[in-house]
């Protein structure tokens, strides 16, 4: 291939989902496909998840939810949104039967106002320590009571939170807070069927975090948390392979046609890429190319460099890049430009 390409192995993605679904059962699995499915391509990835039997997709915003419905994701698959701005078009979102993760009375009222024809599906969020969104424990009873009072327009489907994964103990505290919030809601008369708290790590590691549903992004793409935890140690396969062509060779240096304008961090000098099964060090990153020290190796223009992949041919994984750059795999895959060609393997 003569252009930078992210090859997405949808079969590997489906295998990851199957392994994760088995692990978290009897809890259900929501496949998180926000941020263009972590740079993997929201529509093809969502279709693959649905083909694998997933009935919940985490889409983050209304725009992505509408896009997936327009691309044929059926209405018996719930599409969960939770980044809700001040000027949302809830009418279109309710028509498309999206689910809303709601943190404030203001959001609840805006949704209720738009919900004339049917009942909008709502999941109320309690803040259990992350302090991003979610109602505080002081605001919680009023939020629950209002959702119940609006029951002609709002169907209270779920109660949820998101945790910090700072330590096992901190997560235990968050789980306790979540349980208290559930108890308060119950006392107020709420009868929710979908309680959810965990993302990848807690869903994988802790039975007491799973409740009725877990929301899994990173692990489904074979992106592990790092710090020694590899995807293979979790029996997960990296889904994305990033390649780019060698466009020039000179004096033991190869120029590879992908750069920081394409989303490869400019700080990537020192990481390795693979050419014909041999690893070489990146010397520098420019706007549209990288320079690789190939030493004595015989490298030809037109060869394909693998930046990262599943590691089976000796190439680095995104985990290795992330550890080396002091970040997480999610940042590397979401940073890639949408202009990079995505090639999908069924």
């Amino acid at each position, binding site marked *: 291939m003569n252009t930078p390409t992210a090859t997405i192995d949808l079969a590997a993605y489906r295998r990851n989902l199957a392994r994760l679904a088995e692990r978290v059962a009897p809890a259900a699995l929501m496949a998180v496909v926000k941020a263009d499915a972590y740079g993997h391509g929201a529509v093809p990835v969502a279709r693959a998840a649905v083909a694998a039997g997933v009935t919940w997709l985490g889409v983050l915003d209304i725009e992505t939810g509408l896009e997936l419905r327009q691309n044929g994701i059926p209405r018996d698959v719930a599409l969960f949104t939770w980044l809700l701005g001040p000027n949302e078009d809830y009418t279109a979102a309710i028509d498309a039967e999206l689910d809303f993760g709601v*943190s404030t009375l203001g959001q609840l009222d805006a949704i209720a106002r738009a919900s004339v024809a049917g009942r909008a599906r709502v999941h109320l969020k309690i803040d259990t320590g992350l302090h991003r969104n979610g109602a505080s424990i002081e605001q919680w009873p009023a939020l629950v009571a209002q959702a119940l009072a609006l029951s002609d327009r709002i169907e209270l489907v779920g109660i949820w939170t998101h945790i*910090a994964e700072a330590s096992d103990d901190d997560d235990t505290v968050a789980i306790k807070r979540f349980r208290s919030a559930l108890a308060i809601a119950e006392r107020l008369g709420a009868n929710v069927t979908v309680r959810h708290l965990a993302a990848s790590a807690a869903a994988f590691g802790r039975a007491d975090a799973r409740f009725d549903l877990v929301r899994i992004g990173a692990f489904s793409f074979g992106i592990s948390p790092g710090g020694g935890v590899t995807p293979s140690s979790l029996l997960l396969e990296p889904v994305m392979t990033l390649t780019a062509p060698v466009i020039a060779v000179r004096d033991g240096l190869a120029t590879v046609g992908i750069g920081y304008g394409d989303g490869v961090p400019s700080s990537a000098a020192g990481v390795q890429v693979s050419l014909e099964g041999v690893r070489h060090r990146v010397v520098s990153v420019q706007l549209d190319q990288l320079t690789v020290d190939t030493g004595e190796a015989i490298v030809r223009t037109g060869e394909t460099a693998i930046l990262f992949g599943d590691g089976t041919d000796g190439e680095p994984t995104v985990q290795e890049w992330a550890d080396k750059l002091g970040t997480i795999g999610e940042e590397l895959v979401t940073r890639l430009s949408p202009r990079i060609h995505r090639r999908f393997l069924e």
Partner: protein
Amino acid sequence: MTLSGSHIHRASINLSAIRDNAAVLVRRAGSRVVVADLRADAYGHGVTAVTAAAVDGGVFVRDIDFTASTGRDAEFISAGEALYGLCADRELRPAMRVSALVVGTKTIDAGESVSYGYTWTAPSRTNLALVGIGYAEGLDRIASNVGSLRLGGAPRRIVGRVAMNALVLDLGQDSALIGDEAVVFGDPSGEDPAVWDWASSLRRPSAEIVSVFGSHLPRVYR
């Protein structure tokens, strides 16, 4: 990309800045021919719109007729960073402005922490604003606990880890409303922070900053 109905975040591109920068570069170049550097989708500014604005300002673009229109013996200079206004130069203006809206507000007590890994803990009771932009939009994760956005007339520090689609600003005793705009960088001749300050605080080239934001955010032209 078009602007989403929700307007949570955007890269707004000032095409008259590109046109004016082009004119300045042409004047400075004298007899040499200035050619626009349009790589990486015009450094994330959008190649189609930038081409029109740059040509308007007198800069050349490499196309099939290029040699014919410039003359064979011309001496060329390439305009990249300067064309997009990425360097501190009194005659040039930055073309890109990156901003996002406050989508949540909250007050926390001393000892409470923020975002993944609880990497920041409030030393005293404080007000926070949740802003709808994160590393998937190009706001580097290394800005966690380091970078600031301008909100309500002052720089506000990012506290806790930048997440994929959101970050938290510490407002201290000040407050913000949902819908308020937080600015990452823009035109420093007004109130906005400068892209080169944002870039150098993260030790990254400005060209990388604008290319990555511009390729992920909805772009609005003005």
